């Protein structure tokens, strides 16, 4: 085969082509990802002082952060939120994917679209819709309270996070369901035939064939969901002006706190330190999930 024989000169030319093709993405990537992260690390070492302007303070911002009750308040809130919302959402997504996969009814196509569509709705619109619907002033809950004589308020400080959970679950369950569904569809048909010959029940098929097939996509969806919920910002940011007395503070989530610090408090150095700590925390959690996911895959 003459196709295999490439002269050294030719190989070299091709290798520069590869670099050339990647260059536009690579250079922009450096400009919008790498440089900002390095710059962030740099400014996190400075503080804006009333006298003298920007001054170098070493790791002071980090030391301050780890003693900042407002940071802990927000961080604990999103961690608790993640620990509750992500399992509920993924469990729903798995159940729906299993149902759609095993029912194979007509209408599952319509159902898949219906469940996925919320993903296309911007956070501002979904927060407005749910905010009005769950609100007691104009919303359905208000109507319900009037009818029943109750005074339940979904946006009281104790229940606001649960209401946000309803919004986030609404937006992302369908997306995760489709990923699980795709993994189920990739199972070779022969496995089902073999199971049928062995006289396996539907539950046994689910436990021994379908659930193990979901493991890889479960790792991916857990990681992406954690990354997403740790960054919770849009919903509380929009809700804080939509409903009053919801208990949403300027440090309600770490992202909201960093935003407040950087853009209304002009404490960019401190905000950068906070954002970097959250980034590191997110990456560590994502890494642990990935390692555990791989370990499980090897055990099987």
């Amino acid at each position, binding site marked *: 085969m003459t196709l295999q024989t490439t002269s050294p000169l030719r190989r070299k030319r091709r290798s520069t082509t590869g670099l050339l*093709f990647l260059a536009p993405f690579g250079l922009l990537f450096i400009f919008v990802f790498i440089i*900002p*992260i390095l710059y962030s690390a740099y400014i996190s070492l400075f503080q804006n002082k009333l006298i003298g302007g920007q001054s170098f303070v070493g790791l002071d911002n980090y030391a301050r952060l780890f003693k900042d009750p407002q940071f802990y308040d927000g961080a604990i809130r999103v961690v608790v939120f993640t620990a509750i919302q992500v399992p509920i959402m993924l469990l729903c997504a798995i159940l729906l994917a299993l149902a759609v996969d095993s029912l194979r009814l007509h209408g599952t196509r319509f159902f898949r679209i219906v469940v996925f569509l919320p993903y296309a709705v911007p956070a501002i619109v979904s927060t*407005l819709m749910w905010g009005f619907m769950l609100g007691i002033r104009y919303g359905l809950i208000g109507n319900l309270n009037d009818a029943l004589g109750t005074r339940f308020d979904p946006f009281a400080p104790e229940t606001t996070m649960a209401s946000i959970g309803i919004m986030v679950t609404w937006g992302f369950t369908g997306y995760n369901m489709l*990923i699980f569904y*795709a993994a189920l569809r990739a199972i070779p048909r022969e496995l089902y035939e073999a199971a049928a010959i062995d006289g396996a029940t539907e539950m046994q098929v689910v436990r021994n064939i379908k659930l193990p097939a979901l493991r890889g996509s479960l790792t991916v969806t857990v990681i992406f969901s954690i990354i997403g919920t740790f960054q919770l910002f849009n919903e509380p940011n929009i809700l804080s002006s939509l409903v009053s007395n919801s208990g949403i503070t300027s440090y309600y989530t770490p*992202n909201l706190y960093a935003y407040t610090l950087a853009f209304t408090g002009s404490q960019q150095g401190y905000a*950068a330190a906070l*954002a970097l700590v959250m980034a590191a925390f997110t*990456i560590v959690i994502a890494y642990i999930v990935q390692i555990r996911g791989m370990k499980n895959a090897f055990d099987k």
Partner: protein
Amino acid sequence: MTFFVGLFALYCLLPMVWLLINATKSQTDFVSTFGLAFGGEFALWDNIVGVFTFQDGIFARWLLNTVMYVVVGALVSTFLAALGGYALAKHDFFGKKAFLLVVLGSISVPGIALAIPQFLLFAQMGLTNTPWAVLIPSFINPFGLYLMWVYSSDAVPNALIEAARIDGAKEFRIFWQIALPMLAPATVTVLLFSFVSIWNNYFLPLIMLKDPAWYPLTIGINQWNKLGSTAGNGELIQNLVITASLITIVPLIIAFLCLQRYWQSGLALGAVKD
């Protein structure tokens, strides 16, 4: 199980139905009638006219801005992802493995960790409060690059590239005329998801833009919503906010319905490869 599926479908549809019904109500009906019932008058058309004429018709400007951000951003980011992904799959060069690792790692970096320094850097370059501040970050789509890389390795046969080289085709022409058509399913998927993420972008324009003339729809609608709720004496325009929300999501829903073959297979690709 069927009950659960039905209940979930209801959960997904309810807000959409609510939005549709309430976009047909006048402001008076909105505050006075039951949320899932139609109002006394059918005011959908009046509301749409209201949305496009309120504040000297600034909504049309926001709509055009959003279309511009989406078209330019999605086209450029998809092209860069396709070109880069193809290069990663079909060419060998120094630093390829390390590059892939860094790009995939970058997916887990929270947006805010980037947004604050991006804002400060852009401010120094005089780019904040211009469309570039929203456009430039949207040009980079790490997940799109990954999808294109995975897809090119399978979909473009090496023999075809070699044959084209022997015929004397230039490398860029091989990419443009031979590889790119074969990448169409992945390209449409990446385009669609870029379209959605740029259309729905809230955080980036929120910090980058001060001038309402450059706002996208998401920031504009939030601005209107604040008008009614914060100032006690402000004009209540919830009917306009709701109708504007409906107008905002209609193009996305149409795009998803028309291109469902692509996003379903594209998601499948991402899921199975991992």
